[in-house]
């Protein structure tokens, strides 16, 4: 499924924050993670991810640190900050609101649903 560009852009921040809430991670792993949990439906590009990560870091929602892998490769890890946690909750509320509006509108209006089914 092709998720629209607008939707990908809008969902990037909450998804990144949610992944970092589970555990600290780095760019390559985040892209892989998204690919896996979406069964290859959602493919993020590096060009989308890194600017968002850097913006989040600049705004203090996440912080970064360097860590060496076992093979000796230095990676830039990102860690969720207090502010990021709050931001994530705010996003969740907004998404829930939107989702409930969308679903009740679809269910509650039979005539409109016919249009949706087409």
């Amino acid at each position, binding site marked *: 499924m092709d998720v629209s560009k607008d939707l990908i852009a809008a969902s990037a921040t909450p998804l990144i924050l949610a992944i970092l809430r589970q555990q600290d991670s780095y760019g390559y792993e985040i892209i892989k993670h998204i690919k896996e949990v979406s069964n290859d439906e959602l493919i993020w590009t590096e060009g989308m991810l890194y600017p968002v990560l850097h913006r989040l870091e600049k705004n203090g929602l996440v912080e970064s640190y360097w860590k060496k892998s076992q093979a000796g*490769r230095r990676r830039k890890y990102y860690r969720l900050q207090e502010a990021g946690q709050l931001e994530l909750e705010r996003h969740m509320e907004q998404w829930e609101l939107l989702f409930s509006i969308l679903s009740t509108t679809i269910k509650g209006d039979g005539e409109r649903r016919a249009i949706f089914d087409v």
Partner: protein
Amino acid sequence: MFDLETNVKSWCDYLRAQGTLEEAGVLELESHLRDQIDDLTASGLSVEEAFIVGVKRLGSVSLISKEYSKVNTDGLWKNLLLDPADPDAKNRNRRNIVLVILLSFLAGTAAKIPTAFGVEIGSIAYFKNLSFYILPFVTLFLTLKHGGTPKSRWTLAGVFAFSFAVVNLYPSYEPWHTETLTAIHLPILLWLITGVAYMGKDWKASKARMDFLRFTGESVIYGSLLMLGLMVLMMFTMMIFQSISIDMEPFVENYFLIFGGCAVAMLTVYLVEAKKSIVENFAPVLAKIFSPLFLITMLAFLVAMVVSGTSPFTEREFLIGFDLMLVLVLGMVLYTISAKNLHDKQDIFDYLNVALVGVAMIVDNVALSAIVFRLSEYGITPNKLAALGENVLLLLNLGVLFVYYIRYFTGKIEFQQIVTWQTKYLNVYALWMAIVVFVFPLVFSFN
């Protein structure tokens, strides 16, 4: 054959040269690219294919990186300096050049200041301060480019100020031995300090230090080339003006050489810094060409010495000459090491290196015994003690390198351990230089 390391590095240099990404961003993308390549090769792609695919995917990060896949690596050098791809980089390049010109001018002015205090160009007092005319500006340039923290900048400034104060507050009496020693050792010490500015916050890491050693070697070579150019220009300037009976010598001596020399130093740092780890690293190539030749020369020397039965080092000048040669040999060994890919198999140059180290050790032993002989014969002087200290340090360095190399050949240690040890040993050199500069004058009562 496709060399992954070289290609990854040149890709990183390309990103750096465009100047829109900070160093940390480049490193982040580098590790990303490497992860990607690992995964792609694991799924059956060849390394070259994986590299191409990886670079293409990262192309989306910025237009710059996308441009890379279009640009041929051959033109990279040209790309760095002459025609960067986008207007942003063009501006940045221009800014850097303006900065280099400005700093060269400041350095040249600094080099003129002592003359206002009656210090003649060419005197020991002038040479003693040589590093202060140039290195603070090099350091400034490097911290500006590498974005050091304010704290690190102040620390570096403090070290320079402290050295400057101590060196110039110390008195100096005939026969000016300790002052001459300071003039020789201070630039080396301060160059190592400048290295801290080059390496930034990673200055303790062996990778950064190896980079700095490479940077030093490249600077020597590019600096010599630029200096050669300056000399040619100077000669022609004097000649053509002489033909119309205008004597340019005072101008050349007082301004041309000083400002030109400072500009050469700044420009060298700028050029070498801009191309950092690029494919065209020249110092290791030179080292590979000359290390066998030096090996032969030293062997021939040892043989001739034994056959003719002549003892060397009756004159101090020879002694210093030998020291310099050992430093050069050590330098060549280091550059060969630095050019080596950590995961490469041992090759002919490793064996050559170990032979070179072994022979250099023998020569150093001869030098050491000569110094000890001179010490016991004529008593301690600052010069001999400094030479002795340097020889002991060199011998220790060569000895440990020798042992580590043997252990590496027998598979007992990784090559990385040699690098780690060698880069840590730089501390010892810095310490000794500091002792000669700051402690020797006190001990020998400024004679």
